[in-house]
């Protein structure tokens, strides 16, 4: 077990590798998931040139779900580009009078790219002002109208809302998406041991000794599995205990599935190293493969948002299977896909390892 022991020793004696594998994932989870990224309230700039009771009431309504930003009207485009403002509304002078007298007038709004995030806000503005005009049409006077408008949210029906800040399962899914990315990186870092052997010609030296190719690959693979189990178990336990992320009583299942996934990734990295000629090419291939593997595999976005073609392609990636299981188990408490995912991940591992064996044999015969 010389190769096995050497790999463990080398890994634990490198502080930088340890930091990348154990600290970096939490840094990113803290920054991206715990800090909150996707569900920030919309920043809105309202340029009210009319300044009436109705426009003030409208701004009050917008303020309930968004953050109003004060800024210069001439800088709108720059602020939209710099992501300082997401949505702007301009209310022209005389708008209220024109609206209430039934004229076809509009509020001018602009955005840069985030249209889908703005739909609920747009819907609220449309409904509020349409209801306001209907109330105006039955009011006896302007005073009566504004009195009625005050009751628009609390008359026969009242409305209240509560934004809940919790470590929901969705947050856990987001965090695990990042963890999967770093588990892939850790796979690359671990498989580099084999790469170093190959570069320094240790592979050849070891293989001409009584050690067989199968036992050489086995020892490398075993050391990676042990290290991956340590890495995955520490990452997930810290996420659960240290950061209080919810796993809905399925912690052990998720842990085992991610360990299985990490083994398939290790096998993938070994395959790349055994096939490609040099370390530069191997690193490069793994670097280039990582981002599409993560994107198409659904680590950041649910795969269902992608086209059918991409969804079908993603079925050939281990990331897709692990993320599907994570989503199904944590969000829907559905374990139906688990067995199939286990079979598929094992199949990926076997295929990758078989190709690695062929690659290493070829390398040996060439030398």
């Amino acid at each position: 077990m010389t190769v096995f022991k050497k790999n463990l020793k080398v890994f634990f004696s490198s502080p930088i590798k340890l930091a990348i594998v154990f600290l970096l994932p939490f840094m990113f989870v803290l920054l991206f998931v715990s800090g909150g990224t996707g569900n920030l309230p919309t920043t809105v700039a309202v340029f009210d040139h009319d300044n009436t009771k109705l426009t003030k009431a409208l701004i009050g309504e917008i303020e309930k779900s968004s953050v109003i930003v004060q800024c210069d009207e001439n800088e709108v485009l720059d602020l939209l580009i710099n992501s300082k403002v997401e949505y702007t509304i301009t209310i022209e002078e005389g708008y209220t009078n024109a609206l209430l007298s039934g004229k076809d007038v509009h509020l001018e709004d602009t955005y840069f790219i985030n249209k889908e995030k703005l739909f609920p806000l747009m819907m609220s503005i449309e409904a509020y002002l349409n209801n306001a005009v209907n109330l105006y049409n039955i009011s006896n006077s302007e005073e009566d109208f504004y009195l009625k408008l005050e009751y628009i949210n609390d008359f026969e029906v009242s409305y209240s809302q509560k934004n809940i800040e919790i470590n929901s399962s969705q947050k856990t899914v987001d965090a695990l998406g990042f963890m999967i990315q770093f588990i892939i990186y850790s796979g690359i870092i671990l498989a580099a041991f084999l790469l170093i052997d190959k570069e320094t010609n240790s592979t050849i030296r070891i293989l001409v000794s009584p050690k067989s190719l199968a036992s050489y690959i086995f020892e490398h693979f075993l050391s990676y599995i042990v290290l991956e189990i340590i890495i995955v178990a520490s990452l997930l336990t810290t996420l659960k205990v240290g950061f209080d992320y919810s796993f809905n009583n399925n912690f052990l299942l998720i842990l085992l599935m991610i360990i299985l996934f990490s083994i398939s990734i290790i096998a993938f990295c070994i395959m790349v190293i055994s096939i490609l000629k040099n370390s530069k090419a191997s690193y490069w291939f793994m670097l280039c493969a990582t981002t599409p593997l993560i994107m198409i595999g659904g680590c950041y976005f649910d795969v269902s948002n992608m086209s059918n073609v991409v969804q079908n392609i993603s079925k050939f990636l281990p990331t897709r299977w692990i993320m599907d299981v994570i989503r199904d188990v944590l969000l829907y408490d559905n374990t139906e896909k688990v067995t199939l995912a286990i079979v598929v991940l094992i199949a990926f591992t076997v295929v990758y390892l078989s190709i690695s064996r062929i690659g290493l044999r070829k390398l040996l015969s060439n030398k």
Partner: protein
Amino acid sequence: MFTIFMFTIFMFTIKNNFKAFWIPLSIIATTLIVIFLLGSILENMQKTGVNSKERVGIINEMNHPYKDEFDKMFEGNELKKILEITCLNENEDVQLLLEEGKFHTIIEAYYLDGKNSINVSTVYPESYVLAIATNFTQTANTVTMVMQNQGDMNTLEKQYNNKILKTKILEKGNPIGLDYYGVVSMLQMIAILGIIAVYAILDDKTKNIFPRIKTAPISNFNIIAGRTIANVLYITFILVVIATLASLILGVNWNGNYLVILTVFILFSFIITLLGMISAQLTKSVTASLGVIMGIGSVLWPKYSGAFSPFIKSTIMSYVSPNFHAKNVLFATIYGGSTKTIFEGLVFLFIIAIVMMSIFTIIERSKINDSI
């Protein structure tokens, strides 16, 4: 300053970089695929208005006619396209259901003390349901007030239901998904090329070039400068190729001032090269440098430029991200932003480059002294 020795190193590095032709080919292909995938997803989201269906639980115990109207509203096909609706019993523990992630939003609608009340609990501050429930409340109250006044909603001379908002398209158009990710994903993916700078530095170390050049007429400044210029031009060239192909194949909008675009590309390439060189100096290992480049260049910096989602806010962290400034300058020149924004972004990129260059110089000096 630009000596013949520096030129030799420059040519040697350029030749070495282009010899491995699979590097530019793979980065170009991968970047175009990522732009296409993410761009298509964003465009789809912009059409439907949703990322994924929001899971909504409803407890409806209001009195007549509000209960029926409320149920009818959620039975509509339009809402079913964006929401996954489940009816719940009044005894359900709302907080627990949200914590367990079974629902994103729960509506509790009750008739209590002679009044109907709708309470929405959500983990999404931008939930569609908030707008839907508010609209229902306001419309229900308006209709009730109208009926109390005139007996029937139809008695209104003209029931007002007009379009209120009119969107002003930006002078040079709004970016679509492909235009957006054509810029931010390209900047994210190109960071991988920092690995070339890592190899340049570590090759010099492993081949013991620095102690040897002390006895040769080539200064270490010449070596580093020659290698850096070559790598910067190489990365800039790949950026230009990606931008051109993205424009031709995917239709990504690059109609800005080409001089500004090229300046951003050069400055950004310089920063990526410096990131690779600094990580190589600090870690002395390709694997560890790879981790640093992926962590900082492919995840941390892009995050603040909106590479993972366009829903970002500019924070203090954004100002140290070259991707954020590069994105701002590129969008400003393409979509008609002011000269101030372009200038400000370029200055920030320049400052980041200077700071990184200083860090590299400090490390380099201390390492050379150590090795001698």
